[in-house]
């Protein structure tokens, strides 16, 4: 079982926690006395760990950790802070978690990543007696491409913000609020949402590309966004994204993913200042 304690906690700045105690219900008797009936006995916790100001290589570490553990449980040991009492109840091998959510975002303001991941406790403990019963694993195979058609459009129609998440079709079962089993189905896909503010000529390039490749009609190469080491674009000196010159950069060192538009429709706004504002969801597809 992998230990992601350092990877996930190294650069976080905030944790939101929800803890469930014993779960059950109460039965009122005629005498007025209530009898409490409990079922689960292991505390369940949901952690939402937040990050801010990550550069691309920091994000890449998080991304790799998620991709390699998307459908299995892993150890995150919070023993020092006593947030997770399971190490006291059992041993440190009981600090076992599973990914519930993974979302990051980058925008033109600082061209750095912010985001959050959500973990839920697992009862698939790291003990031989448990591990010998069931197998679990995760897989992710990058669907790489060299297609540059979308990149050529993005070089003019540059997004000012990009959001990252995953589409995961693994199935999970639970006992109480904790994950019990997960089955990797090999279908992990990256998903992006791009946000644009464009001049008409650049927007027309984008909408034309969409008309040619919308929905299931086309696949194209999708880049990652962020700053490679030593490469930085200062944010324009204004508080809001109003200028079409503000944009996030493609990470040149990262290979392209084969992807397509996730929606069959494209919504956009034409503003009185003549600029076009729109967003699109893009989903990795396997070759």
């Amino acid at each position, binding site marked *: 079982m992998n230990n992601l304690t350092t990877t996930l906690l190294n650069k976080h700045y905030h944790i939101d926690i929800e803890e469930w105690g014993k779960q059950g219900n109460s039965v009122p008797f005629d005498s007025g006395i*209530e009898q409490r*009936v409990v079922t689960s*006995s292991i505390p369940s916790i949901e952690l939402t760990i937040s990050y801010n100001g990550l550069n691309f290589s920091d994000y890449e570490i998080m991304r790799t950790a998620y991709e390699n553990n998307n459908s299995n449980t892993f150890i995150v040991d919070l023993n020092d802070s006593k947030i997770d009492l399971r190490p006291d109840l059992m041993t440190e091998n009981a600090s076992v978690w599973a990914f519930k959510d993974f979302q990051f975002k980058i925008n033109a303001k600082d061209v750095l990543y912010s985001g959050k991941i959500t973990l839920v406790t697992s009862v698939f403990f790291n003990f031989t007696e448990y591990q010998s019963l069931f197998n679990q694993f995760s897989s992710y195979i990058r669907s790489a491409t060299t297609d540059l058609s979308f990149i050529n459009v993005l070089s003019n129609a540059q997004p000012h913000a990009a959001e990252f998440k995953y589409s995961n079709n693994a199935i999970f079962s639970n006992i109480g609020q904790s994950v019990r089993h997960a089955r990797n189905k090999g279908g992990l896909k990256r998903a992006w949402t791009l946000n644009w503010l464009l001049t008409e000529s650049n927007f027309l390039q984008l909408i034309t590309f969409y008309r040619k490749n919308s929905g299931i009609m086309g696949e194209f190469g999708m880049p990652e966004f962020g700053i490679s080491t030593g490469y930085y674009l200062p944010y324009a000196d204004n508080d809001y994204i109003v200028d079409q010159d503000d944009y996030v950069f493609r990470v040149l060192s990262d290979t392209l993913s084969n992807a397509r538009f996730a929606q069959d429709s494209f919504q956009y706004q034409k503003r009185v200042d003549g600029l076009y504002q729109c967003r699109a969801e893009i989903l990795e597809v396997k070759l």
Partner: protein
Amino acid sequence: MKTITNNSRSSRQLAILHLFEFDMYNFDGTFKETLRFTDHDIFVDYNFNDYTPLAISFDRLVEDFTMSVDSINITIDNVNGALSSEALASEWRNNRASITRVSYTPAAETIDSETYDYGYGDNLAGTTYPELDLDAISNKDVWTLFGGVIDTFGASESALNATITTEFNNWSRPFPTRTYNQNEFTTIVDAMTDIIYWGRQE
């Protein structure tokens, strides 16, 4: 006999868990193993047997005084696929299935010098893995909630569903519902008088 004694009834906190047992036979009719599961969230040790924690749910039990056949559906977590491969490799049907209900008062527990009246967890100190030792709990009641045989089962990717019927079923119908191949019997009388157990003949 469902007798909830004052062992657990007099306490204001009552924990309930269920123990499930399914006898599995090889296709040649020989006994293979008894599968033991619990809907608790850690292993449960009872009568020196380990019950594996799985997400299991079952229908509400209905009792009446008619002699009708009672059956309930059980849904067992099959996400790891272990059960469906077991189900295909051995015979479940017409074999013993039981649901046992256990009510007990969780013992007090001290964690980091704080005492919890009703144990916060159920780990046993000194064991190598988390396990609830029911034998060591004196304030408990154990009774059989349902005893019968597995009639039919089906597996999907996420769950294994089984219908278990009471043994009354056997009074009116000596074999579980199935479609027989007529080639198994040379005459109709053979088919009517023979008692067929799935996968084996007794």
